[in-house]
């Protein structure tokens, strides 16, 4: 399936608006419809923004496999937006924890980050997302060079597993939900591993006259 540049732009606008729906729902619940957020609204906001961070991260990671498997190259045009939305929801997630759970008590928060492994990995993942968000503009890609930019953005292969681990360790006992995220992540990362091994085999010269494998950004 191929799309005209015009349809891609239109679709991007639609995705942009839809990605704001979870936030709009939280804001409306907090301001006007308390029943939407239940008895523990702060927990609801923290959980929900955490969920959406992981969902956008996985969506961004799904771009490359889907593009290659289906030949939908226009999907690449959505990757930056998905990644930035992951960062956006992660920042709200952290703000909600800092304000609602710890009422801005910095000493308490630092102790929490050091002491509790699930907070440590979650916080690490968020910090690692900062350089990716900062270097997400076209200008920055040109400035640091495509090759360096690609290596930097491979950090997402660390960030996403840390994010899922953060969820897994946070859960008190029933890990069904984090296990689903972990399974999807395993498929998305596993695809890359298999593709990489296949490329390596080509390069090793087992198929000297085989089709040339073009080096592709696989972040």
């Amino acid at each position, binding site marked *: 399936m191929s799309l005209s540049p015009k349809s891609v732009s239109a679709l991007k606008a639609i995705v942009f608006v839809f990605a704001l729906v979870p936030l709009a729902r939280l804001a409306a619940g*907090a301001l006007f419809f308390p029943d939407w*957020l239940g008895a*523990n609204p*702060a927990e609801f906001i923290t959980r929900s923004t955490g969920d959406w961070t992981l969902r956008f991260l996985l969506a961004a990671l799904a771009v490359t496999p889907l593009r290659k498997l289906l030949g939908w190259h226009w999907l690449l045009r959505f990757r930056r937006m998905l990644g930035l939305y992951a960062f956006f929801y992660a920042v709200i997630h952290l703000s909600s924890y800092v*304000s609602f759970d*710890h*009422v801005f008590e910095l000493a*308490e928060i630092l102790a929490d980050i050091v002491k509790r492994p699930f907070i440590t990995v979650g916080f690490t993942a968020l910090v690692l997302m900062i350089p990716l968000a900062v270097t997400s503009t076209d200008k920055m890609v040109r400035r640091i060079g495509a090759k360096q930019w690609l290596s930097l953005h491979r950090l997402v292969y660390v960030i996403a597993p840390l994010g899922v681990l953060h969820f897994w360790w946070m859960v008190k*006992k029933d890990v069904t939900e984090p296990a689903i995220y972990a399974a999807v992540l395993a498929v998305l990362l596993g695809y890359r591993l298999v593709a990489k091994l296949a490329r390596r085999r080509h390069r090793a010269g087992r198929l000297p006259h085989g089709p040339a494998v073009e080096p592709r950004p696989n972040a």
Partner: protein
Amino acid sequence: MLIRRPSDILPSEITPRRFYERRRELMKLAAAGSILGAAGVLARSARAQEKTLGLQKLENVAKSPLSTKEPLTAYKHVTSYNNYYEFGTEKEAPEVYGKRLKVRPWSIVVEGEVAKPRSFAIEELLNFPLEERIYRLRCVEAWSMVIPWVGFEFNRIAKLVEPTANAKFVEFVTAYQPETMPGVRLPVLDWPYTEGLRIDEAMHPLTLLAVGLYGEMLPNQNGAPIRLVVPWKYGFKSGKSIVRIRFVEKQPKTAWERANPNEYGFYSNVNPAVDHPRWSQKRERRIPDFFARRETVLFNGYGDQVASLYAGMDLKKFF
């Protein structure tokens, strides 16, 4: 002039000095960063009138001097935000699936180190002299509520069965109904859920067997038809839907101890100084507040009554 008894002013209600001194700064921060939260709180307090499920009213309920005078947590929050893992680990699962729980016929078997083991039908227990006890409930997950329970002291049952000198602990076994409880299909905990108290904790006048909430019969999601309430311990110690009570000599292993002994001890007294590996226990959020602005108090504020039970004990070791 109304003079509050000193014990009514909780240490958690006194503004800590560091907040007081930074009040202007904090107010700015709050104004800037938490417009969302503040507005939400206002929206909530505007609708404080109470609507219950309209379950059967409990008659002749006496008031108790052991009740707190703090504002009650709304009935709808007490009944929609529950940990009752037999119905699922989500907070709303007990309200949704708990409807299926079969609560009649119901009886509690009392056995073990007692002179007169016997069973009590729920109808008999409902005829005990009932009183309303408004207690704070502090969950290990760092949130709290204020709940008007209706029930009677556990020691009333003990007196009827006459524990022997060997009765050092009490084990509470809760309902296991695979046909009504979707949550027990998963081995989340070692079912049935069990809890335990030391005999002096169980016999303490604060330890309640509750059969009602807000003057009505207990809703299923809150542990119908009869549950334990131990207000100075984390909420999970207060087992729901009790079917069996055993007086025993050896300290029983509780369900959470079996699941994760490093995180959940036998005593599990509310204690801000004993950190849980998962949650800081320093502060708590009073449902439905946005901000966890209350500092947690040792024994959930019941220290005057229960601290003597633990005299000389290292509460960090016996957590």
